[in-house]
């Protein structure tokens, strides 16, 4: 399965890119995170503290143990600071 992975704010800076297309066999977000973190040191650094990482599946907030199912766009970002 191919998914678009997006990064925002300091996650984007640490990974070094805003989006990438990834071929994955992950069943859950947590499994995808493990695959991404194994890619290189930048991904590993960005995804090292999961308590500071939030996730959206196809633009809906989700948690780390959510099944990826048919999601095509998976975004990782820090806790939001709007308002």
């Amino acid at each position, binding site marked *: 399965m191919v998914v678009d992975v*997006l990064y*925002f*704010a*300091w996650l984007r800076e640490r990974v070094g890119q805003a989006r990438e297309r990834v071929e994955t066999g992950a069943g859950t977000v947590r499994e995808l995170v493990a695959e991404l973190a194994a890619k290189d040191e930048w991904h590993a650094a960005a995804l090292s503290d999961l308590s500071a990482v939030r996730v*959206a599946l196809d*633009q*809906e*907030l*989700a*948690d780390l143990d*959510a099944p990826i199912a048919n999601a095509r766009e998976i*975004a990782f*970002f*820090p*806790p*939001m*600071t*709007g*308002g």
Partner: protein
Amino acid sequence: MTARVQTDAFDLGQEMAGFGQGAGAIVTFSGLVRDEGGRLVALEIEHYPGMTEKALDAYGREAAARFGLTDWRIIHRHGRLQAGEQIMMVATAARHRAAAFEAAEYLMDWLKSRAPFWKREITAEGPGDWVEAKGADEDALARWQGTSCNPAD
């Protein structure tokens, strides 16, 4: 009943012209960029295009249903905003003031912690730290427990 995400400034007076006609109470809130005692020149606000618009619209509809609003408006800016500039506004209209006030607070609590915006400080030296989320904002959300704008919450 609209939500907008934009880089441009907005004029509160213009936004309120014709808003909430027939309501008994209108509450508006606007948030400004603080200079934090002269330390900050500006904020750079990043967002998640696509998700942001959907989230703001969902929060507006949720607030309207919960508090019986007759009208609502949310505007949130992104990009580089100088100290003193308006970042965002919410307006709520209802038959009575309690609902209008409560709905405005409810919307602000959701926007602070669940709308996909991220602020970075810009000082005289250039881009600085990303603003960290506050535990107090998360606590503020907890008081509305029992309703949710998102199945994940």
